[in-house]
């Protein structure tokens, strides 16, 4: 590494990779070569910056200039103006990075200012493929401290004192889990990392692995020391090729410098780890199914107890934590349990990463202190709802969670508050819905997902969720009956208590919570055969109103010739023929056609 006068950081997360960051990097290289600046300016490919909405993102240090939606053709300008002449290219800056002609650096932009980054602290700051850069930002210092100054029990006590709870969904106190595994009898123990992130819309674990893979390696080695394991497995889905690559590179780098292997830091502690690829079944995020899958068996859950802490991988005591949980560990060791316990609420300590998606302006990844309200996340950081639409609900916890309506926007986010509202923290997906989302359709969407992903081992989940889906299908098609709501509720209760694993036990949650807060929408579908949000196709008809001038444009546009009418006279739609494609609505110059 040479000392450079400027670093150009290009986001290399999955989001920015698909919007073409590699082209930008190639062009940067070419331009720097042309202007003979290769010795002064370093191009760094980092992990996710979090503001995926504005990608591809390029940040130029030392100024911290925040360029967003950069295209290949913009690179020449950035190089010639900014890098060569030192003039920041204002037109290309992120919209909030320039206020009243004042240029703000990346850490002053609202989206980042209100966040509290612990798990994501290195994402978008370091080159994830360079172990030196991780070490520069205090990497592996925590492992060194643990191995040379602390006993295994001290480490467990520190994690317990910090109040860290599992970030994968359940929120089980991590320190206790560590203690159970440490106390379990066994000649061989394992630590494992659950990187089988399956909730639709959640991508925080992927981003941590892509942006800061060494943090996971360091944390797993610390956990190995604490519980008495010398081997670790990371179970990660094959659909995350960039994360797998970077983790693989990181493991090799750590072995090269002796941070994995034998006698780490000159002590008698040995630790190594391997990657296990998952094929992307949702149920493999469930811990016992995951363990089966690591062993090469079919990914189906086992009954608990025995818990993995007693009988895990190959029936040996196994500590299993989620990626984000591990990402917090080195920071807790370095800064102390009290520092961590000071962040957050009484029962939920630290921070949580959320993947913001749906009807929100700043789609992306945010990390906030526990206790931040939903409103702050959605409006202050997320930038609110696009196109001036009204907020309707926010879905948290993925297919195991629920929808929270607007009345509860000022609820501070923590494990217990979300459960009290009938949702859950889950892995941290946060999907915002506006007035144009039909809640029956949303419930149907999530249930459709769980039916699809149910492993089929236990009947309540295999058959029960399928029956629920059929009822919801009926309701959205206008064939529902009032008893259907009761049937749904009864089925939901039964599936909840009788399913084998977490997948089935939480599968009815999206239905229960939408029924709780949006019952009138279900009733409108059943009684009036209407979809108030205008989503359920079977319940809508397209009609032409009196303002029709009889121009005939819609008639020509209709793909099934469902529109009839003489020139200059009111046109009509033959409802039997109409396929509700909506082409006529877009074509009508007088806005006379609407879906109702």
């Amino acid at each position, binding site marked *: 590494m*040479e*000392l*450079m*006068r400027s*670093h150009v950081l290009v986001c290399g997360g999955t989001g920015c990779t698909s919007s073409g960051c590699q082209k930008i990097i190639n062009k940067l290289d070419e331009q720097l070569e042309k202007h003979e600046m290769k010795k002064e300016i370093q191009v760094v490919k980092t992990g996710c910056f979090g503001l995926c909405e504005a990608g591809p993102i390029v940040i130029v240090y030392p*100024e911290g200039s925040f360029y967003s939606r950069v295209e290949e053709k913009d690179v020449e300008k950035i190089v010639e103006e900014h890098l060569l*002449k*030192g*003039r920041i290219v204002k037109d290309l800056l992120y919209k909030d990075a320039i206020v009243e002609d004042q240029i703000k650096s990346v850490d002053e932009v609202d989206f980042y200012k209100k966040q509290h980054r612990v798990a994501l602290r290195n994402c978008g*700051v370091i080159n994830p493929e360079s172990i030196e850069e991780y070490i520069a930002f205090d990497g592996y210092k925590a492992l060194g401290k643990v191995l040379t100054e602390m006993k295994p029990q001290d480490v467990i006590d520190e994690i317990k004192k910090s109040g860290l709870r599992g970030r994968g969904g359940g929120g089980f106190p991590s320190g206790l889990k560590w203690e159970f595994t440490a106390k379990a009898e066994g000649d061989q123990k394992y630590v494992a990392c659950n990187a089988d992130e399956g909730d639709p819309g959640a991508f925080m674990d992927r981003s941590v692995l892509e942006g800061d893979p060494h943090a996971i390696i360091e944390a797993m080695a610390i956990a190995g020391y604490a519980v008495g394991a010398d081997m670790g497995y990371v179970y990660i889905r094959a659909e995350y090729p960039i994360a797998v690559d970077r983790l693989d590179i990181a493991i090799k780098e750590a072995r090269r410098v002796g941070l994995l292997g034998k006698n780490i830091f000159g002590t008698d502690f040995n630790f190594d780890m391997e990657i296990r690829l998952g094929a992307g079944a949702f149920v493999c995020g469930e811990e016992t199914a995951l363990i089966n899958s690591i062993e090469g068996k079919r990914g189906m859950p086992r009954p608990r107890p025995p818990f993995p802490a007693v009988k895990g991988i190959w029936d040996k005591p196994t500590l299993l934590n989620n990626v984000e949980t591990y990402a917090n560990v080195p920071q807790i060791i370095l800064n102390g349990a009290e520092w961590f316990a000071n962040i957050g609420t009484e029962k939920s300590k630290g921070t949580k990463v959320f993947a913001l998606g749906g009807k929100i302006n700043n789609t992306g990844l945010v990390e906030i202190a526990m206790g931040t309200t939903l409103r702050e996340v959605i409006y202050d950081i997320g930038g609110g709802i696009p196109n001036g639409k009204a907020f309707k609900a926010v879905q948290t916890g993925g297919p195991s969670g629920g929808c929270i309506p607007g009345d509860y926007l000022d609820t501070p986010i923590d494990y217990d508050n979300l459960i009290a509202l009938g949702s859950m923290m889950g892995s941290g997906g946060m999907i915002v819905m506006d007035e144009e989302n039909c809640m029956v359709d949303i419930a149907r969407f999530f249930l459709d997902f769980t039916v699809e992903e149910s492993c089929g081992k236990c009947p309540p989940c295999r058959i029960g969720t399928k029956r629920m889906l059929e009822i919801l299908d009926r309701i959205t098609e206008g064939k529902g009956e009032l008893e259907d709501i009761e049937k749904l509720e009864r089925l939901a209760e039964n599936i909840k208590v009788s399913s084998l694993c977490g997948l089935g036990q939480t599968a009815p949650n999206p239905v229960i919570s939408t029924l709780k807060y949006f019952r009138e929408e279900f009733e409108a579908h059943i009684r009036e055969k209407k979809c108030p949000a205008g989503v359920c196709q079977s319940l809508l008809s397209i009609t032409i109103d009196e303002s029709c001038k009889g121009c005939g444009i819609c008639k020509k546009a209709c793909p099934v010739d469902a529109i009839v009418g003489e020139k200059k006279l009111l046109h009509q739609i033959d409802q039997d023929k109409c396929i509700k494609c909506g082409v006529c609505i877009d074509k009508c110059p007088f806005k006379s056609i609407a879906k109702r």
Partner: protein
Amino acid sequence: MKSLQELEQIRQQALEKVSIRTDRKGTRIVVGMATCGITAGARPVLMGLLGEVQKRKLQDVVVTQTGCIGVCRLEPIVEVYKEGEGKTTYVEMTPEKAQRVILEHIVNGKVVDEFTIGAYEK
């Protein structure tokens, strides 16, 4: 990895390379690099400054660039912003002069009067 010292050594070496991403304090050395500056030889000056900063392992010093400072006839111009000090403007710089600026001004805290724009104007 055999010891904490070994880790610390790697950390120190890597830290100075990446500190420009985190530090926005300390000393800023700005080189005028518009057409006028570059033609007058700003690039060797910049490289001279960088080399000297690296050689002396100076922390909290950022070498950066700007556009035309306005007095094109006096280029290459280097401006130094030290914390708690006003701006110092050095004119008609060369790589050799740059080395002296780093040594005397940045390290020892004494402005090199003879290179400043004030001295030139007299």
